């Protein structure tokens, strides 16, 4: 375990020479299926965005193994402080594509009540998938506070804090890793090094030998793992989590991978990513890699893939249809949840908004009475 050598498990031929992940066939297939569902969700979202049905989405092609491998190392009683490129973790733990699609549409059934941009999910069940924020890095230190509460109550849980290579330059990374190490908090810091921060390559992001080595600045173990190797990611996160649960404190894990597309549906990577890189990493596709492993275990065939993929597309297309058919959030959602109670001045502003909507003949105005 050094911050420099790249840890991997699944060999090119799919072998894992001797390593035993101690996972049932069902678990292995659940991981595989989840990666396919991430891909399907991406594809459907992209189509919807191009068709103008939704405003925005964030593609995950290339990093599925990192997301799912990390999620597979956690218990439902653990916490996830995710970035916007982490919904594979949500899917793995049973959050439904429908719940996610409601968010993509920002409709009345969206858990964020249509207040956030697409992919800014927030879920509490079946696992704590913390409300995603746009500002980069703010959740890294927040995860540490959450973990401190766990310590205080002597609970056996851990907090996974996930962020990108760009996130390591943020304020929250510095305070987060420093506080966690001083407090020996049960946090696993997962840096998903997909080598790009929008158009900024790692060479412009840091001069350090790796991202994992940044752990030395804080006095915690640092590990660099092959992010396209689901089993390797899962193993490193499990080891870090086990150490944390035992009071061993935090770990920084760098998952080395590659973003096989644009930063978001608004981004054109051809402006800055040499296409040779795409060709090179195409060969390292994390899903194909896991398929080779499953095949060796006699768990995979093209028909398995096709069935899973078909099911995934069917479910997600259905989810999109239902989400699209769901109405906008009510006008009152602009004014609720600012505070636990609606104060005087917001009540007045809300009433005015309802009056205006009614006068405009806008259904949102209802009978014009502010309902809160």
């Amino acid at each position, binding site marked *: 375990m050094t911050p420099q050598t790249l840890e991997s498990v699944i060999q090119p031929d799919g072998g894992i020479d001797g390593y035993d992940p101690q996972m049932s066939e069902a678990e292995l297939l659940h991981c595989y299926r989840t990666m396919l569902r991430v891909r399907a969700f991406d594809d459907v979202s992209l189509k919807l965005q191009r068709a103008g049905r939704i405003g925005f989405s964030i593609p995950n092609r290339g990093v599925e193994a990192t997301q799912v491998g990390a999620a597979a190392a956690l218990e439902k009683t653990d916490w996830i402080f995710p970035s916007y490129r982490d919904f594979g973790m949500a899917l793995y733990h049973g959050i439904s594509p429908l719940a996610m699609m409601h968010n993509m549409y920002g409709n009345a059934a969206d858990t964020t009540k249509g207040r956030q941009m697409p992919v800014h999910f927030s879920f509490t069940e079946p696992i704590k998938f913390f409300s995603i924020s746009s500002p980069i890095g703010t959740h890294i230190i927040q995860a540490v506070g959450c973990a401190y509460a766990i310590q205080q109550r002597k609970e056996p849980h851990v907090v996974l804090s996930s962020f990108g290579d760009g996130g390591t330059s943020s*304020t929250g990374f510095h305070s987060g890793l420093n506080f966690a190490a001083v407090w020996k908090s049960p946090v696993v810091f997962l840096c998903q090094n997909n080598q790009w921060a929008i158009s900024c390559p790692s060479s412009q992001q840091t001069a350090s030998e790796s991202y994992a080595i940044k752990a030395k600045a804080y006095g915690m173990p640092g590990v660099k793992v092959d992010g396209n190797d689901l089993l390797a990611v899962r193993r490193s996160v499990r080891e870090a989590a086990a150490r944390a649960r035992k009071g061993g404190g935090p770990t920084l894990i760098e998952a080395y991978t590659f973003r096989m597309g644009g930063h978001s549906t608004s981004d054109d990577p051809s402006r800055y990513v040499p296409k040779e890189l795409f060709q090179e990493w195409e060969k390292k596709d994390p899903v194909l890699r896991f398929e080779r492993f499953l095949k060796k275990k006699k768990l995979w065939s093209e028909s398995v893939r096709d069935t899973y993929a078909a099911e995934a597309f069917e479910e997600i297309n259905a989810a999109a249809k239902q989400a699209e058919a769901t109405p906008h959030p009510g006008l009152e959602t602009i004014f609720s949840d600012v505070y636990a109670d609606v104060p005087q001045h917001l009540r007045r502003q809300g009433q005015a908004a309802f009056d205006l909507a009614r006068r405009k003949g806008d259904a949102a105005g209802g009978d014009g009475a502010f309902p809160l």
Partner: protein
Amino acid sequence: MANLTLVQAVNDGLKTAMRNDPSVVVFGEDVGPKGGVFLATEGLTKEFGEGRCFDTPLSEDGIVGAAIGMAVNGLKPVCEIQFQDFIFPAFDQIVSEAAKLRYRSGGQYTAPMVIRTPYGGGIRGGLYHSQSGEAYFCHTPGLKVVIPSTPYDAKGLLIASIDDPDPVLFLEPKALYRTLKGEVPEGKYKVDLSTLRTVREGRNVTVFCYGAMVPVCQKAADQAAEKGIECLVVDLRTLLPLDEEGVLEAAKQTGRVVIVHEAPRFCGFGGEISALIAENAIEYMESPIARVTGFDTPFPNTLEHHYMPDDRRVLDAIEHVWSY
């Protein structure tokens, strides 16, 4: 009842809250063994242990960011920023995160927490140990902003803030930490947030103020009284959410208004009070709405007595709006 200074009342409020609720934790720079640079947290580590009152690394971003995470997961963090002037590294965590978490998560996650910090001039602190930044925070929906001006209110408002379901910025007027004493009940009591305090009744001129400017305005009001001008002095106490009805009521009672704060004038809190009145009660106004504030400059050191509003400047304004 004990006769306490304002900082002692804060200390008493913290101890009371920590005794009543084991989930309350206090942390920040030098709040542990040293007891805080103003001794507001003196004795807490001793009584409650290092797990509940402790020092942090030198990072305001870390202090507030960690507090948010603690609050999300069931603790009641009451963190200290050593001087309000040093809160700005945490501005993003306060404005982008603590204030917006409930909203952006559809109410799934919330951050009930208190950020305590001494603010204001009068200790020869120069640019960076004297500022009054309340206006920066009052423009932030989702946040509550509280400023006590008496020992009684300091304890009662602090306990109410700690019990509040939303994030509260609790600004303590350091100039008053030890200058005045007052009766403070033992044990737990609350002063409701978003309520005004009438410091002094009067029919001629309404003076709005808060924090360290309250005694200054009282003094000016006494002098005005000698000249036959009776001032209604109102301590705003909670700036956000503000009791706007109460403010308009008090303004209408006299039709003449003076607003006082230490902070620079431009885009300061006084502007909001004035605008509220100009928008909802202008027909009651019999004279210009005057503001007495710090100048629109950084805070000086040697000449701070010229910078800070004093009874003389407040009295001038009172006479101005009265004789208009």
